[in-house]
């Protein structure tokens, strides 16, 4: 099954680290990502710029479009990146998410796959 991992959380965990600690953690995340990719579990994904760089576009039912500053879900926890994974079931997805090396919060969402036929 394919799932999207939404990687986010508050900045608390990161803010308490020194620059060196943060760099070391980035390296661990890079290694984690490479290993998962090599294992065929991580299909793609990216780190995103800070939520403060987000722009929200809303299209209403009558077709009116509005553009506003900020993410569409306002809150303490913002999304900092995502990955698309392919694993047998939710338990495997939970195991994978549990091994994420940084102090973050991860949301696992199943992806709806539609047959091409």
């Amino acid at each position, binding site marked *: 099954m394919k799932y999207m991992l939404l990687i986010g959380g508050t900045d608390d965990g990161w803010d308490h680290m020194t620059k060196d600690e943060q760099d070391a953690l980035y390296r661990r995340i890079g290694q984690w990502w490479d290993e998962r990719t090599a294992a065929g579990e991580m299909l793609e994904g990216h780190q995103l710029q800070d939520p403060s760089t987000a722009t929200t576009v809303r299209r209403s039912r009558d077709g009116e479009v509005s553009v506003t500053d900020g993410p569409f879900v306002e809150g303490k926890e913002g999304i900092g990146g995502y990955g698309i994974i392919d694993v*047998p*079931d*939710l*338990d495997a997805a*939970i195991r994978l998410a549990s091994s994420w090396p940084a102090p973050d919060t991860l949301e*696992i969402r*199943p992806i709806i796959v539609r047959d091409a036929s």
Partner: protein
Amino acid sequence: MTERRTVDASLERVLREERTRLIASLVRILGDWDLAEELVQEAAIAAIEHWPADGVPRNPAAWLMTTARRRAIDRLRRDARFRDRLEQLGQEADEMDRPIATGGPLATDDRLRLIFTCCHPALSREAQVALTLRTVGGLDTAQVARAFLVPEATIAQRLVRAKRKIRDAGIPFRVPEASELPARLAGVLAVLYLVFNEGYLASDGSVVARRDLAADAEWLTSLLVRLMPDESEPLGLLALMRLHLARVEARFASDGSLVLLRDQDRSRWDAGAIGEAGRIVERALRMGRPGPYLLQAAIVAVHATAPSYAETDWAEIVALYDRLHALQPTPVVALNRGLALAELAGPVAALSEIEPLAARLDGYHLFHAARGELLRRQGRLDEARAADRRALALTENPAERRLLEERLATQDGA
């Protein structure tokens, strides 16, 4: 011809004992919870049609399973959605016509898969409880709703959502791996104990359905024990429940008010049941490294085997609470340890033990009730009254309210 009454009786008995196994097996084959329930229903109807003419089969459980499985295969063949699954199950299909063995290897019992899936941490606790009672316990939606005093539509919706999440989020139908087992088993036991307490503690004798809930939880736990005989925590929980149930008659006075442990008529306790539960505790303790449920059962067993409140082995109880607190350093465990300490070292020592818990237990009625009791024993009556009033404001349980109101009335009169 077999008499209709005989057929009904056999069917009822076999469904009660085997329904969970039928559902579990069909869920594994079909991956569809609603369809599994439907097919068991259909198999039961087929039994009502066939058994009166053909006689009750020698192995009624196997007959029901074969019938349900045949129908499952028919459905799979007809439904395009299931075509892949059918191919996958080609091998298994041949085996389906053979009568299934009952009491097969426990490690692979489908019922265990069912229990762990119902209690999967990706489901809300409310959904875990509803799904376990409905699917493993065989209660219908109305019964679950009555027991939890919520509208039937709420329970129905909870079940629909939970089943949809299991399907759409890919929650697997299996027993967790060894590395995950302790945490997942703790989750299952928490659900069973929650159901038990809902029936046992919340009961004031007026809602019969709630007392039945305690019996349902005990049955589910005994099933878990049969399925995982080498795990000590399910044994601990089973003993804990049985020790509570063995003394349930003495918990309420004839007017429905709650009787405290100290004032209970111990001759109304079921000594036979207490002895059996005590032997379960001993057996489980010999397995080593007792967990929190087993330690709680051991504590209750000390109470249950004491000839009187005064002759209780309080030193042993405090020692067991120390071990429990090491595993579960929660303020509630510390509070209970403090109360046992009151009997060993007096109310002054106990009060100074529990006072530091005030900040964390301020919203917990039993903390204030315990404080009230310890203050009263020291003759600090005004403070005791204030604590009892705070406890009263925090509980809605009618039996507990009555006890606190009586306590306040007696003090005011004194």
